[in-house]
């Protein structure tokens, strides 16, 4: 319970960074922290006390393995989610660099040609 809340605290810090900060790189950092928090949360819910990694090695007892191993499905989901967040990061950095080239600033309060 406490550990879920701590993980969630990380999540809301990412949200705070996104809303309150006006700097493009800081906003990207906010998104990165959000992704860390969600990935961590997925792994936390799949953890079993004293669990072992879900990898079988030769000679291991399959019975005890399937009782002791942690939940493998969230790990698969997080693997997908890490790749997706890398993709989003690449796109965001490229757009931010292009914006810097155009406006010569990273400050969103100065990047505001669009209004209404």
């Amino acid at each position, binding site marked *: *319970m406490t*550990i*879920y809340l701590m*993980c*969630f605290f*990380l999540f*809301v*810090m990412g*949200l*705070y960074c996104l*809303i*309150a900060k*006006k700097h493009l*790189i*800081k906003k*990207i*950092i906010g998104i*990165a*922290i959000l992704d*860390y928090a969600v*990935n*961590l949360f997925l*792994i936390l*819910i*799949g*953890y*079993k*006390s004293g*669990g072992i*990694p*879900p*990898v*079988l090695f030769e000679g291991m007892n*399959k019975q005890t393995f399937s009782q002791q*191993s*942690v*939940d*493998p*499905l969230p*790990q*698969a989901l*997080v*693997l*997908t989610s*890490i*790749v*997706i967040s*890398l*993709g989003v*990061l*690449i*796109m965001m*950095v*490229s*757009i931010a*660099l*292009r914006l*810097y080239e155009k406006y010569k600033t990273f*400050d969103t*309060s100065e990047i505001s040609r669009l209004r209404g």
Partner: protein
Amino acid sequence: MLVFYTLLAIMILGSIVAIETRNLLSSVISVGIVGFTLSILFLMLGAPDLAITQVVVEILALVILIRATISVDNTAIEKHRDTFAMVSSLVFVGLFLVFASYAFLEMHAFGESLMRTSQHYLDNGLAETGASNIVTSIILDYRAYDTLGEATVLFVSVLGATVIMRRIGRKRGVNL
């Protein structure tokens, strides 16, 4: 158990530094601390696949982010605080936290995974797919369609970045 709390506390501290520091480079490096601590935490939580992936992805992400910051001549951020944005975001964040803790009261306790569908993977994964790494058997056999989507996401984002970074977007001479 204590080690999880300690590592998570380090992550929270690292992200506070990353959010609040005025120097861009130190901000990016603090994010690196958060990411690397996360990979240690993954290792402790029984996810070595993720730990490897997180480390290498973190390296790449840091290199890319540092590339973005060194293009700026002055890496310090000027001081201007938007009090309204700060207060409103704090209120929003606080509400979010309250609702979350309200919801978490009914979730299973930490360390008691539910394993409703996953037990099938653990019991039959090796026999049905032949991969002794159950995570691989999930991502490349049981849920391979997701992985197709995942690879496509990376492909799309790289394609998108090449499109965004091309020198000339619109042709000259055509009207507009």
